[in-house]
């Protein structure tokens, strides 16, 4: 197997153009993976800056920095940027870099599609944020101001920012579907001989389910926003009761996509966790089969629970009971995953390098997301939690602690493999502790704000909410600033640092660790075999 590793090193870059053209035309999975990850990191800071402006406004009661219209634009675009332009591309970047290495494939199955999939992202991000700039020049009234959920009829009423966002979502959706097709085809067709589906790395399994979910649900979102577009401009009345439509239809369509989207963001991370835990516990992953079936079960359940996002819209009792119980049912496969993660650590020989710290932090904080999610499923209690800051805190535990900290786990885990250099453990650990501390400082107060009755998406609030909001803003700024350490650590690691071995981590197992660090530009030109 190791014979393949040195091959490309002997043939330097003459196969492909240099400079900008290299990146524009590349079909190499590593290059494309790097572009996805870089794009994701940039957009993470863009989305972060937006929400820091929001938190600054919320630091004290009263309107200090911005008008409510602008506030509404920031919260919605923050969510869209973080979900579609930061988290999803990060996961796709991981898949691009790691899947071929992990399953012994020379590249992704559809390399040109891969290139196109990436290069759709920057235009989409520009479309999404352009209305902010246009408004500065007096064109239009700014970006989407409806929250990321586009709820009709508010979105029918909105300005041209809504149209920009609809088109951006279409492009992002096309990109994601192409990425998903590529991943499914690669996993099904390009595994090394001997790697049966039940020997597939769990990261690949997680992504496989994600890819199917994307293909199943993104077209529904595309349909919903297209109906919105025609309601806005072409005289249809899908969501207008006066024309025989129904505003709640939009919510059904949106959340048919929106709920699986949560798992789309999380499944790649859940797939990654057993690799990291097993590496740093020096012990094989516990319950491989159980985890695979849990991924599948969660994938299937995720498309039949959507209406728990709008219990307060009113629906018949049987529907309420059904959506409540089906939502609660997700706790079972999710608990299987938690069980397997902890059982993987149990009786291992653990060390706590940065990736392991992030993995453990992920498990604990994501546990809070799961447990609060369980009680949110309760219809009666949901009447109090819904649309309050309790929900805001809940889904940030899911998507920041679950999603973004999961991505950070992956970055620290694989960065030495990608670059061939070790990052600074000192900075990494500092980044971890600052992130965990400030994340909780930001979001624990939001649970209490929600319970006390503060609705979400308001630019100004009653005086009784002042103290917790001030604490939350303080936490948010520390959280935002500590991410600069992350970027700095990555930058330094890319530029140089102590050389690492092929295996990087003592307990790492899998094909990817048999290639040199960094792997050659073209890897696995001779297929390895798995016994």
């Amino acid at each position, binding site marked *: 197997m190791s014979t393949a590793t040195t091959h490309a090193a002997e043939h330097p870059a003459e196969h492909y153009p240099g400079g900008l053209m290299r990146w524009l035309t590349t079909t190499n999975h590593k290059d494309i993976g790097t572009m996805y990850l870089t794009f994701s990191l940039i957009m993470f800071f863009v989305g972060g800056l937006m929400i820091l402006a929001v938190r600054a406004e919320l630091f004290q009661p009263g309107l200090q920095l911005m008008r409510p219209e602008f506030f509404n634009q920031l919260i919605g675009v923050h969510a869209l940027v973080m979900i579609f332009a930061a988290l999803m591309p990060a996961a796709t970047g991981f898949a691009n870099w790691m899947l071929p290495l992990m399953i012994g494939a020379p590249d992704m199955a559809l390399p040109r599609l891969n290139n196109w999939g990436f290069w759709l992202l920057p235009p989409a991000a520009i479309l999404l944020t352009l209305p902010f700039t246009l408004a500065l020049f007096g064109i239009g009234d700014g970006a989407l101001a409806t929250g990321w959920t586009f*709820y009709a009829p508010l979105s029918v009423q909105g300005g041209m920012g809504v149209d920009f966002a609809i088109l951006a979502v279409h492009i992002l959706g096309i990109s994601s579907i192409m990425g998903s097709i590529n991943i499914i085809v690669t996993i099904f067709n390009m595994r090394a001989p001997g790697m049966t589906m039940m020997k597939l790395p769990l990261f690949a399994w997680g992504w496989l389910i994600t890819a199917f979910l994307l293909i199943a649900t993104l077209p529904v979102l595309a349909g919903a926003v297209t109906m919105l577009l025609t309601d806005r401009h072409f005289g249809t009345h899908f969501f207008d009761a006066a024309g025989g439509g129904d505003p709640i239809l939009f919510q059904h369509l949106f959340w048919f996509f929106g709920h699986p989207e949560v798992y789309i963001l999380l499944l790649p991370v859940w797939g990654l966790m057993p690799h990291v835990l097993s590496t740093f516990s020096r012990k094989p992953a516990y319950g491989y089969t159980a985890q695979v079936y849990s991924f599948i079960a969660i994938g299937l359940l995720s498309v039949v629970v959507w209406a728990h996002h709008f219990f307060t819209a*009113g629906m018949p009792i049987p529907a309420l009971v059904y959506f409540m119980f089906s939502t609660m049912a997700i706790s079972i496969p999710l608990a299987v995953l938690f*069980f397997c993660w902890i059982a993987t650590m149990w009786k291992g020989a653990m060390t706590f390098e940065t990736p392991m710290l992030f993995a453990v932090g992920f498990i*604990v904080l994501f546990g809070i997301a799961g447990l609060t999610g369980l*009680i949110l499923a309760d219809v009666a209690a949901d009447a109090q939690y819904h*649309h309050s800051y309790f929900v805001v805190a809940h889904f940030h535990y899911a998507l920041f602690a679950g999603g973004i900290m999961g991505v950070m786990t992956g970055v620290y885990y694989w960065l030495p493999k990608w670059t061939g250099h070790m990052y600074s453990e000192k900075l990494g650990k500092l980044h971890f502790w600052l992130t965990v501390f400030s994340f909780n400082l930001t979001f624990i107060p939001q649970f209490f704000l929600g319970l006390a009755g503060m609705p979400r998406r308001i630019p100004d609030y*009653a005086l009784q909410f002042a103290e917790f909001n001030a604490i939350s803003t303080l936490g948010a700024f520390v959280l935002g600033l500590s991410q600069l350490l992350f970027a700095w650590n990555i930058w330094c690691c890319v530029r140089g640092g102590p050389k690492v071995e092929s295996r990087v981590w003592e307990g790492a197992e899998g094909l990817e660790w048999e290639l040199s660090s960094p792997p050659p530009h073209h890897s696995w030109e001779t297929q390895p075999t798995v016994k």
Partner: protein
Amino acid sequence: MARTPHHSLAGRQSRVYACACRTGRLALAPALLLPTVASAAYSFNFPEPVTPIARETLHIHNEFMLIITILFVVVFAIMIYSMIKHRKSIGHQPAKFVGPTGALQWFWALIPFAILLFIDFVLMGIPAVQAIINMEDTKTKADMVLKVTGMQWKWQYEYPVSGLKFISTLSTPRDQIANAEAKGEHYLLEVDKPVVLPVGKKVRILLTSTDVIHTWWVPQFGVKRDAIPGFLRETWVLIEKPGIYRGQCAELCGKDHGFMPVVVHAVPEPEYLAWLEAQKAEAKTAAGGADRTWSKDELVAEGKAVYEKVCAACHQPDGKGLPPAFPALAGSKVVNAPLLDMNGKVIKDSHVDRVLHGKAGTAMQAFSASLSDVELAAVITYERNSFGNQMGDMIQPAQIKSLR
């Protein structure tokens, strides 16, 4: 919810506060890290419940918080134990197992899931279904109906039996929001005309909206229901204790979403009936005004008050608007155009047409449904003769009445 000690319900509130702390700490232990300054209002749980549903919800919530706290502590205690005992640095040798082996291990591996199933579908599930049935039962023994209509960005309340109808808007002065003056005790949670309900009566609440989706929420009532344009939704409250209860719109509904509070005065029934009679008499007097001829100065004066309450949020107190979403009225082509056609009928897309019937697809709603003849006539006359507009004409309430 109480912030200041001189609040009328202070004694009760502090008791709630104390009990809330206890549950809050159970729920999330890290909260202990937060400084509990005596003067600050740190509330860790739901505000005091005043309806059967809110009481039940608080009870369920506390129970669930306890359950998930126990789950959290047990699961992560096991994990932390492992992290301490199974470290490489203390020389622990890694085991090799990858799954349960033998009947006993399978038994112990499956036990947690049996417990979880029990928690989900029995311990939490059964009370939850009961709560749903109770919450959705709006009709049994309902004593009265209140119709709530959400509008950008105010609430309209209607008592269908007595025909009383009025709009309730934020009364916090703009200067307080702009930080130009000190904020009052009920900043953003105060209205010009609160809705009044009798205590001890089951009130069936019907909800709808004239524009976008709003959500009517009073935390102390434990109910939250969307107001959806073109549809009726319902919920119910039975307020057990007289008092002033405050809430807010909970669904993002446009720029002033944060500025449309709900304020409910719950009073004993005789007081409620007296209030209702007084309101009806007042409405009658106001309606009588529609039949007489008003002078232009009267209309302008009345119109200014209506404008500032209803229109200024979008078109701004100075009539300059917030273009392009909210057009200026100052110098507007729509305003500075003929009032009515030569037969005294409404001209399509004219000033009167816009005010009465709104503009589809925008925040400009049909005010014929929510304003009286006098208010409509007054505000139209005011707009035509203010902000530099000098049309000099006016429209009488009686004309509006005939144009409806």
